[in-house]
């Protein structure tokens, strides 16, 4: 029995030895240590086999081999751990090298004096003055006090983990502005007694300027779109003015025959009041968008908008307004911007119903939010259209649409810290809901 166990042990040890020696890529030291361990085990098994077959001298030999086994285990484990960890370190170094060469981010390692220790290729491209040992402020060439303060905290060991990306604007001595985005984290290396930092720094000046140009162009397009809408409203208003003039003309004609007619005077006053109200609301609608946010009553806003919106929608479309039975619904907002958003939604609703129909404009209060809704009963939209709805310059109206209307609506809602949602079904219609946070601030008198 014992002999059988030892023969099997001998076979297992020799087989393991063969497997290890075929693994040629493993380090020589690892192969030597595992060979020593397996060799000692094999010799121990062999000595025990011989002892079992009556070679009594082998007993002492087997004991001597046994005494060596734990030592060999220890050496083997040490070398296995060292070999594996050094392999991982090499792989990790390769990953870091790849990262530094491949990623577009400008990354640099700084020592405790905020001097460069190393940097990525993108960093070198962004900051050509970079060289190991150069100070950060010289390399960047722009004052960044917030980054400097954060770096100082980091180097003093007062900051932990990666700071999220932060934007900072640098004012240059010639009055120019440069925009940067940076993230920072402490970095400690066993070879360095003092902690350093890893910095991701991006010069986003060109990107910001392009964004500003794009924003200005979009704003200009939106303004032109609004003017076009105002033109449409003016056409509708002109029709009503004509009606008022007819009333006044009739009343004047009556006064010529009967100068004391109070009814004719009253008709003239009513027509003039209505014309004045209409003019005021038109002027308010065409107002600029630079008004600061202020407490705003949505009930009043919608009441004032009914007339102008009706003109914008034309005679084929009927505006149905549903308002809550409350004194006011106050939000913090800018009336011209909200008017523009509602007008854009109303015009879209009109265009979705080429043969006419009702367009519902609603206001409700749900929890801490005011909900403005615009509903049409038109063609609805596909999922594909819905997914691109707020993308600038996306339009389903061909040459007739700018593709900015809903983008403007979304921007306005975001300006008011609100949310926008859309429900649509093909051939049934579409409902837009703007949810805006209510304000507790009192309305201006």
């Amino acid at each position, binding site marked *: *029995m*014992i002999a059988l*166990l*030892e023969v*099997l*042990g*001998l076979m*297992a*040890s020799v*087989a*393991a030895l063969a*497997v*290890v020696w*075929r*693994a*040629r*890529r*493993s380090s020589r030291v*690892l192969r030597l240590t*595992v060979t020593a*361990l*397996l060799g000692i*085990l*094999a010799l*121990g*098994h062999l000595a*025990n086999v011989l002892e079992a077959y009556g070679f009594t001298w082998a*007993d002492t030999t087997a*004991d*001597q081999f*046994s*005494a060596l*086994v*734990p*030592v060999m*285990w*220890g050496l083997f*484990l040490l070398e*296995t*751990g060292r070999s*594996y*960890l050094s392999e*991982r370190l090499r792989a990790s170094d390769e990953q870091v090298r790849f990262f530094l060469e491949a990623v577009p981010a400008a990354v640099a390692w700084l020592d405790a004096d905020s001097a460069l220790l190393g940097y990525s290729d993108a960093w070198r491209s962004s900051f050509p003055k970079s060289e190991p040992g150069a100070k950060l402020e010289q390399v960047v060439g722009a004052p960044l006090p917030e980054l400097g303060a954060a770096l100082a905290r980091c180097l003093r060991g007062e900051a932990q983990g990666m700071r999220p990306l932060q934007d900072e604007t640098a004012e240059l001595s010639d009055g120019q502005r440069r925009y940067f985005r940076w993230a920072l984290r402490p970095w400690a290396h066993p070879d360095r007694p003092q902690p350093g930092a890893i910095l991701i720094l991006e010069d986003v000046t060109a990107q910001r300027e392009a964004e500003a140009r794009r924003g200005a162009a979009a704003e200009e397009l939106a303004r032109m779109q609004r003017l076009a809408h105002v033109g449409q409203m003016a056409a509708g208003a002109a029709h009503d003015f004509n009606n008022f003039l007819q009333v006044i003309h009739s009343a004047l004609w009556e006064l010529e025959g009967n100068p004391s007619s109070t009814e004719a005077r009253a008709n003239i006053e009513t027509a003039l009041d209505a014309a004045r109200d209409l003019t005021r609301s038109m002027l308010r609608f065409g107002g600029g968008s630079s008004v600061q946010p202020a407490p705003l009553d949505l009930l009043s806003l919608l009441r004032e908008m009914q007339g102008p919106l009706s003109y914008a929608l034309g005679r084929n479309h009927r505006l149905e307004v549903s308002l809550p039975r409350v004194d006011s619904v106050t939000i913090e907002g800018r009336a011209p911007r909200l008017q523009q958003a509602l007008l854009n939604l109303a015009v879209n609703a009109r265009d979705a119903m080429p043969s006419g129909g009702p367009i519902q404009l609603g206001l409700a209060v749900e929890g801490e939010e005011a909900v403005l809704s615009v509903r049409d009963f038109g063609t609805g939209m596909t999922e594909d259209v819905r997914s691109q709805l707020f993308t600038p310059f996306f339009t389903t109206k061909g040459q007739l649409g700018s593709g900015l209307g809903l983008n403007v609506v979304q921007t306005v809602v975001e300006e008011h810290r609100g949310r926008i949602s859309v429900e649509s079904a093909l051939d049934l219609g579409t409902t837009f809901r703007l949810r805006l946070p209510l304000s507790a601030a009192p309305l201006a008198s």
Partner: protein
Amino acid sequence: MGRPPFDERELTVLCSALLLAVASVYFRRELRRVPEWPFLLGGIAFLILGSTSTIVEHFASYDLFNTIEHASYLAQSLMLLVWALRARRVLA
């Protein structure tokens, strides 16, 4: 088979094996990253079982513990064989 006299070296082997086990537990976070580490740990466990049985056999149930001792050493070699087979992807 007769019962051989107790040899102090056997105690040294057991102490060394226990020391190895303690070191393995202490450095478990690092050693856990070694490929197929559980098989190496099994080998060490069988080494401890074998060297413990070597001592116990002198005081009780000689045949039983002698068999356990040799079976443990066989299991230790088998664990190393399985480790070598499974880890050769990494070693090769």
